[in-house]
């Protein structure tokens, strides 16, 4: 299944977290979350861990991509 993409760039916290949590609550596990700052990355990764998902972080130019999968 293709990962669901969430563009949370430029959004201030906690909006990236709210978007990701909504997607997880709706049943998604494979997410590709785009953020553009460290704080959002930390918060999204922490939420993913708390929701029992594995999070992998990679850089994409100025953006940060957090890819979550089921553990």
């Amino acid at each position, binding site marked *: 299944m293709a990962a669901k993409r969430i563009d949370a760039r*430029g959004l201030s916290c906690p909006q990236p977290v709210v978007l990701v949590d909504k997607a997880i609550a709706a049943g998604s596990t494979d997410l590709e979350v785009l953020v553009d700052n460290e704080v959002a990355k930390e918060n999204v990764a922490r939420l993913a861990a708390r929701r029992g998902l594995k999070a992998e972080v990679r850089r994409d130019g100025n953006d940060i991509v957090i890819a979550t999968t089921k553990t």
Partner: protein
Amino acid sequence: MKNIFSSRAGIIVVGAVIGIGAAFLQYFGNPPNMGICVACFERDIAGALGWHRADVVQYLRPEIMGFVLGAFVAAFAAGEYKPRGGSSPLVRFFLGVFAMLGALVFLGCPWRALLRLAGGDGNAILGLLGLIFGIFIGVLFLKNGYSLGRSYAQRKASGWIFPALMIGLLLLLVFQVSFSPGGPIFFSLKGPGSQHAPLLLSLIAGLVIGALAQRSRFCTMGAFRDMILIRDFHLASGVAALVVFAFATNVILGQFHPGFEGQPVAHTSFVWNFLGMTLAGLAFVLAGGCPGRQLFLSGEGDMDAAIFALGMIAGAAVAHNFAVASSPKGPAAFGPAAVIIGLLFCLIIGFTQRDKMSV
């Protein structure tokens, strides 16, 4: 590089440092139960500049400059300095204005509410309950898609404006510049504005806390928000550490005096302590951070946060010029009206500012 301060242990250490630091700043001269208060200190800055003429609350508080500059240096060193802005600046300005009005009806920002509690001031409980209630309302908006829109990268130099302003204020303080006989710059001769720790000590404390808070993302509003919104206790553990360590330090230094009556720079109106902080809490959620956090963000280059901070300083001028700010005697004549107008403003913003983003 792993950021050790964003760990659970890190945020607890930072909360403890702020709590102990605030108690010691009080010990060395800052006003009682006001070792650090972002709202009060911004209000003092507005007074020193002559934007309001309440002669008991005028001082250029170096803690505030330290917060911004410490965060600026820490963000720069960590490669996180990133000029950004453009997310509803005017809305943020007025959220800052009304946040300050609410905070000055209560007489303190969330930091001071916690420090007042740690000093034994029972009225702080009402303020904190109001704060949590305001944050709860804000979380409902967040769950329904509230957003002030995206911010965008800005040119490098524009992020330096706010830190440069802080350096300018610091120079005015160091050289005690007088622009005309009697001021500005105004310095209180009596009252809380006349009580301050030595300049260098305040500045160093501000710089250290600013740097630590930037690294750890310490935020008092965020602590309650995350507990309500996603049952996350990460930031809350930092806030708990602040209270516990400030309390312990206060006991050791003989600064703990439990009670409701006669508490320093506080009043006993349960209703307006509660509602003042309800307004402040709601405005903080809608703007994305407590007053301290907004200063740290502005040091990182977040110009929207800087606009909020400027709104708070302007709000302090409004609060004291138009009989909104409370005094130890109780709420001022126009305090309740200002709180109601502010709550209406925040509710309208909460209902109208939404992104129709599909998830």
